[in-house]
């Protein structure tokens, strides 16, 4: 059997198989689930990289479920696809790479971080399911299928956020909050999907993109989808779930949750760019997204400065950084209908925003992991109770410095590369936006200096005399992320040319997306 054409599906089929077999394996040996899920996610990461290489060299990949062959999109005589189709273009696989990397490292980190808890088979099964949900949202080319995977990811993350709810009340509260938010948003997405299906009788994104008329109903559907997906991504007026969920979940899960909210962000871009494209009133919708971004940036960072809980502080920073992505891509959307402006600065702004997605997943993941490492050794998340930890946790300190410098946008780390792209291009669109973005960046630096000072500097505290470096698996996960951050910071042009630019172009070129499945230009 030739496995190569089936690589796109194996990315999500393997974690799905793993999630279902795990509870059975757990009956044989209690130690199996962790190692087994690391292996599965490692294989999934490997397949994702293979598919990414194929997408970059050959072009978008298509996988049709249950058809006579993998590329058989149009059954005989039909003008529209009827089966579930995975369409993997540069943007999808860009997000897929983030998901694969983050979930693999999350599983590695969990090996020791979560060791002492009970019900580990369920933890790992849910982790695999969450990964499946995220992959599905990013790779699918079918809008109903997107809703299904959104639900899978939401339910798995709710259970994982409240994983430690047995002894404490807060995780249960955070989980409940996220459950309410995600079920509301999933239902509204379903309602919008219903509007599309009622009008055009197709659910395939490519076919919808070709048929869509931007009627009154389509406007309603857009109005439903944009705020709801922004809510799942944690943009400001709808950010109330983010600090709770991010701070109460176990640290590796928080890292994966960041990637999960970015999957919703991806869906927001997919809907606006691929589905509607220039039929939209791009200037208005672009400005709506830019304003979401501005609010998220500013309110996120100002809320972060006053926090005392290290993970809550980082959660507010996650909101703030989401603002940069919304700003960059929003500017791209605002000038989408104007070819001159698009060429001049629109594409650069989108590249900045999209590159920031990957950078954010890496450095924010690293920062959450260091926060988890501090919690693992000290048992507290309160910054006022920490201090002098640089004496005993040397690696963690270095990793924290790298993460903090990257999030503040200092060269030579990856945050600088994407932020510079955003500043430069957004300045040509509207200088004030760019200045606000820079101010936010400075405030970010200020608040991370505060964290560094109160957690790591100072004399060695007597109550942390016993504290030592965290176990190898946790150091490994953090080291890999730091390596990626430094690599991206030193060679941003390699990544932008090979991954980010094709991703931005695949969002802009709606016609190409449809033609991959339906044929014809």
């Amino acid at each position, binding site marked *: 059997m030739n496995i190569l054409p089936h690589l796109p599906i194996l990315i999500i*089929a393997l974690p*799905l198989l793993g999630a279902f077999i795990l*509870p*059975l394996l757990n009956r044989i040996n209690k130690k199996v689930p962790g190692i087994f899920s690391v292996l599965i996610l490692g294989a999934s990461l490997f397949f994702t990289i293979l598919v990414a290489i194929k997408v970059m060299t050959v072009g978008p990949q298509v996988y049709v479920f*249950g*058809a006579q*062959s993998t590329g058989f999109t149009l059954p005989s005589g039909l003008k529209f696809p009827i089966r579930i189709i995975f369409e993997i273009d540069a943007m999808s696989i860009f997000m897929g790479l983030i998901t694969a990397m983050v979930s693999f490292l999350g599983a590695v980190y969990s090996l020791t971080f979560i060791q002492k808890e009970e019900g580990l088979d369920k933890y790992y099964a849910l982790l695999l399911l969450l990964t499946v949900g995220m992959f599905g949202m990013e790779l699918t080319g079918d809008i109903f299928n997107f809703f299904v995977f959104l639900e899978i990811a939401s339910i798995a993350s709710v259970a994982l956020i409240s994983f430690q709810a047995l002894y404490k009340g807060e995780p249960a509260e955070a989980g409940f909050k996220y459950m309410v938010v995600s079920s509301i948003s999933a239902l509204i997405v379903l309602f919008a999907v219903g509007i599309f299906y009622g009008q055009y009788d197709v659910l395939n994104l490519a076919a919808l993109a070709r048929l869509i008329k931007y009627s009154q109903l389509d406007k309603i559907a857009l109005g439903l989808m944009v705020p709801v997906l922004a809510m799942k991504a944690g943009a400001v007026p709808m950010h109330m779930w983010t600090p709770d969920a991010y701070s109460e979940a176990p640290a590796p899960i928080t890292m994966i949750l960041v990637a999960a909210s970015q999957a919703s962000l991806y869906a927001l871009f997919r809907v606006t760019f691929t589905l509607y494209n220039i039929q939209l009133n791009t200037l208005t919708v672009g400005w709506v997204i830019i304003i979401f971004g501005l609010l998220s940036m500013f309110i996120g960072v100002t809320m972060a400065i006053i926090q005392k809980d290290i993970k809550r502080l980082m959660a507010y920073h996650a909101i703030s950084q989401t603002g940069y992505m919304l700003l960059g891509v929003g500017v791209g959307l605002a000038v989408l209908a104007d070819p001159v402006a698009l060429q001049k600065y629109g594409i650069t702004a989108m590249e900045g925003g999209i590159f920031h997605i990957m950078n954010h997943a890496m450095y924010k993941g690293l920062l959450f992991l260091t926060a988890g490492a501090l919690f693992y050794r000290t048992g507290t998340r309160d910054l006022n109770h920490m201090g002098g930890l640089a004496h005993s946790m040397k690696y963690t300190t270095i990793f924290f410095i790298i993460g903090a410098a990257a999030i503040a946008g200092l060269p030579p780390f990856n945050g600088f590369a994407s932020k510079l792209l955003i500043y430069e291009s957004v300045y040509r669109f509207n200088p004030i936006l760019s200045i606000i973005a820079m101010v936010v960046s400075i405030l970010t630096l200020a608040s991370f200096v505060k964290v560094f000072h109160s957690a790591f500097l100072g004399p060695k505290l007597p109550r942390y005399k016993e504290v030592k470096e965290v176990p190898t698996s946790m150091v490994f996960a953090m080291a890999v992320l730091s390596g990626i951050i430094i690599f991206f910071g030193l060679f941003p042009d390699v990544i932008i040319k090979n991954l980010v630019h094709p991703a931005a172009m695949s969002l802009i070129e709606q016609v190409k997306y449809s033609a991959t499945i339906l044929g014809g230009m």
Partner: protein
Amino acid sequence: MSPMSKIVRTITKFVYSIIIIFGFYIIVHGHLTPGGGFQGGAVTASAFALLLVSYGSLASKKFVKKDFLSFLESSGLTLFIALAFLGLGTTFFYNLLANSGGWFGNVSSVGINPGDMNTGGVVPLMNMAVGLEVLSGLGVILLVMAGAMEFTKKKENL
């Protein structure tokens, strides 16, 4: 939960098996009639709910074991995904038993007909897997919720 009166318990004895058989009927005929794995599984699980209500949670734990149900749940799911993997020679989820003449392999007739059980390929098998998963999954949920009720009652009495 405490057990209910003798009338309810006696009726439960009669109805219990009938509900389970009806649930299995819906599961097995999933590819021909309305309903399928999920619906049939939910009907079957409602028999567990009846058992819990009428006999109380302590007594019903002798009949339905949580551990066994969660084993069934994972095996149902594994069976489902394994069937999907079987098609991987052509594509994922490919229906390789349909129209093959073997198991569930008859060619289904077009138009009004009484319905042939022996059609559908892997669809009926997947229905059974889903049915197994749903009946055991809902069963576990019901048992856990009944257990949680006992737990809170004990706390109140203290």
